[in-house]
């Protein structure tokens, strides 16, 4: 999973694959309607970015940059 690969490159990044079946309430909280659905959150748990569907490396990188410059 691409997000896991991203996590490997920084001690500040963690990536958690979450079964929407096992954690349906959390899925509802993040308005997951199609998978994969990637929510990017900051250290306080605030949602700072969302990617719906599979994304190539460059797109996920752009989303992080956008999220961190908000």
């Amino acid at each position, binding site marked *: *999973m691409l*997000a*896991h*690969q*991203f*996590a*490997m*490159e*920084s*001690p*500040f*990044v*963690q*990536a*958690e*694959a*979450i*079964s*929407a*079946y*096992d*954690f349906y309430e*959390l*899925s509802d909280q*993040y308005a*997951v309607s199609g*998978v*994969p*659905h*990637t*929510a*990017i*959150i*900051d*250290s306080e748990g605030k949602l*700072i970015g969302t990617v719906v569907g599979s994304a190539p*490396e460059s797109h996920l*990188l752009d989303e*992080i*940059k956008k*999220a*961190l410059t908000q």
Partner: protein
Amino acid sequence: MKENIIDDETIKQIKDFFIQIDNPTEIILFTQKDNCPSCEDTRQLLMELSNTSDKLTFSVYDIDVDAALAKKYNIDKVPNIVIAGKTDNDILDYGVRYAGLPSGHEFGSLIREVVQVSKRDSNLNKDTRDYLGGLTKPIKFLVFFTPT
């Protein structure tokens, strides 16, 4: 005796795939005694998986009993799987987590990432590595999937 979750043919395929494992890799599972319907199946699945290679080790902890360790790995839900590197003296935490029973497509993804972690290399482009290496603020990806 409880029936195996992974059939013999799949075990053979996994063993062949895990020839690619370069370095010792630790699979850590956090469970909970109650309120975790998929914890036991996840535990058995990972036990069978870890038995396919002598470069894999498997440990199980309880999120309540081992609360300090759960906090160290930032675990807030169970079952939760950590795929980490292992040296003689240390566990190398790469921030790789799986929450829930990894079935179907995600099981294949988990197997590939065991190999990825064992190589201690993300296989990302230089630009991506440089940017991520310069981060100073924590972020977390929550990637939702459905079992297929």
